[in-house]
C-alpha cells in the first residue's frame, strides 16, 4: 500500500483555488470546537466532522474553524462557541453531529441563536 494515494487532490485543489480566489476580506465568523480530553471523550470529534462536512457544502468564505482546550465546563461537553462579528459569542453545550448541523445552518448562516442548546451568551466588553 505505502504512501496514501491522493490522485484526485490536484483536481480538488484547482476547484478550491478558484473558489478562494473570490474570497474578499477576513473571517467574520469564528467557530471554536473545544477539544480537551473531556470534549473528545464526549464526542467533539464527531461534532468537528459534521462541522467540516457542513463547511464543505457552503459557499461562504468568511467562516473560520478553530479548536481549543477545556474551558473547565467538562460536564457540558462537547462545547462549541460561535462568534459572529458584532454579536456576543454564544457557547453551545452537549453538542452532537445533528445539533452541530442545526447550529451551523440556523445560527452561523442565518443568525438565529439556537437557544435550546445554548449554555451561555458571553458579553463582550
Amino acid at each position: 500500500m505505502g504512501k496514501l494515494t491522493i490522485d484526485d487532490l490536484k483536481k480538488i485543489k484547482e476547484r478550491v483555488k478558484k473558489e478562494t480566489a473570490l474570497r474578499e476580506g477576513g473571517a467574520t465568523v469564528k467557530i471554536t470546537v473545544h477539544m480537551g480530553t473531556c470534549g473528545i471523550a464526549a464526542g467533539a470529534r464527531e461534532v468537528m466532522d459534521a462541522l467540516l462536512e457542513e463547511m464543505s457544502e457552503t459557499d461562504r468564505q468568511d467562516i473560520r474553524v478553530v479548536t481549543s482546550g477545556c474551558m473547565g465546563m467538562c460536564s457540558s461537553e462537547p462545547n462549541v462557541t460561535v462568534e459572529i462579528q458584532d454579536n456576543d459569542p454564544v457557547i453551545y453545550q452537549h453538542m452532537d453531529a445533528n445539533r452541530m448541523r442545526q447550529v451551523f445552518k440556523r445560527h452561523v448562516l442565518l443568525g438565529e441563536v439556537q437557544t435550546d442548546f445554548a449554555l451561555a451568551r458571553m458579553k463582550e466588553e
Partner: protein
Amino acid sequence: MRELSLHILDIAENGIDAGAHLITISVREEREKNLLTITLEDDGSGIAKEVLEKVTDPFYTTRRTRRVGLGLSLFRETSRRCDGRFSVTSREGEGTLVKATFRRDHLDLPPMGDMGGCITALIAGHPEVDLRYSHRVNGEEFYLDTRDIKKDLEDVAIHEPKILKYLGGMIRKAEARLRAMT
C-alpha cells in the same frame, strides 16, 4: 474513550499545546506477537523531570481550568487493562514520546475507530502543525505526511473544508483496505 483513535487525538493535542511543529503518530500491529503498539512523538517543549513522574496521575494537571488531568492516565489505563505497557519519555526542550502497547486479541481492546476523523480534526484546529501518520499491519503499511500534501497543494490551504473532507475519506478508505487485507 470508546476508540483508540480518540486517545491518539487527545495525546496529539497535548503535543500541540506543548508547541510542537511535528507530531509523528505510528500504529503497528504484529499478528504473530499478538501485539499492538501505538507511539506518538512530538518536538514540543518536553516535560521537566520532576513533572514527568506525575503526568499519569489523574489528579495532576498543569492547566488551571480544572483540577484533574485525565488524558495520559486514561490512555495508560486502557493499555494496562489490555496487558500492555505504557511509557512517557521526555526531554525538556526536545519533545515527548508516548508509547502504549496492547495485547491485540484482548477482549477489552477498544476498536481503532475513525482515524480519518482524528487526522482531519487535528489539521482543522492546527493547520500550521505537521503530522506524520503511519499504520502498519504485519507487512502492510500506509502513511501520510502533511508536509508532502502541503507541497502538492501549493498555495491552497490544507485546512480548506473540501480538502479535509477529501483527505478524511482517503484515510478511511486506506484504513478499511488495511483491515480487509489482514
